[in-house]
């Protein structure tokens, strides 16, 4: 992906399970407009990687806690992409 638009915040995405297969990376730097929410990030991910549309769900975690779509992303956040879990 070549990102040519001007952005003012960078976060790190960490992907597990099928999310890692979709990104083809465990870790990926990602640029976002300042003030973006988790919902904004997910929309951008779905636009860039349409395979996310096929998942049953996609949750995100920051600091080892689930965060909702309305959560505001901070510069430098490590955002963990959590596709449907299947432990047990």
């Amino acid at each position: 992906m070549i990102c040519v638009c001007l952005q003012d915040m960078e976060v790190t995405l960490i992907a597990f399970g099928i999310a890692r297969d979709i990104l083809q990376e465990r870790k990926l730097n990602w640029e976002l407009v300042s003030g973006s929410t988790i919902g904004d990030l997910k929309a951008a991910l779905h636009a860039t990687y349409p395979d996310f549309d096929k998942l049953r769900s996609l949750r995100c975690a920051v600091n080892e806690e689930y965060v909702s779509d309305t959560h505001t992303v901070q510069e430098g956040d490590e955002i963990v992409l959590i596709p449907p879990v299947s432990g047990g």
Partner: protein
Amino acid sequence: MTTIQQQIDIRLTASTLQLAAVQTWLGEAGVGGSCVFVGTVRNRTREKAVRYLEFEAYIPMAESEMRKIAEQSCQRWPLQKVAIHHRVGHLEIGDIPVLIAVSAAHRDAAFAACRYCIDTLKESVPIWKKEVFEDGEEWVAAHP
């Protein structure tokens, strides 16, 4: 005086899970009854033969979510001990991916809490299971 920390045993491990280890641990309490849930790797999913499974976890958060589940159980029911053990890595057919043991003076609480633990674990703990077949592989439950 037993604290909540002494009551709870959380393990996310690449080593074999053993019921025998839980038996000894449960035996230390003044328990009346224990309910144990043991998952086992099934040899068939939708008619395709599973060769083996790979379990991946977001380890620090998985441990923290497992601990939350155990602590919530202790708050909700009068329990003596809660163990939640989960495997990661390569598992063969017949291996145990998950083992939950709950002890209580009364079996109502033990059954209810054990059921709550496995149900909640399957919803909220960031662990992913990949089934590997002869002709491919698949992340379980990823797609609708």
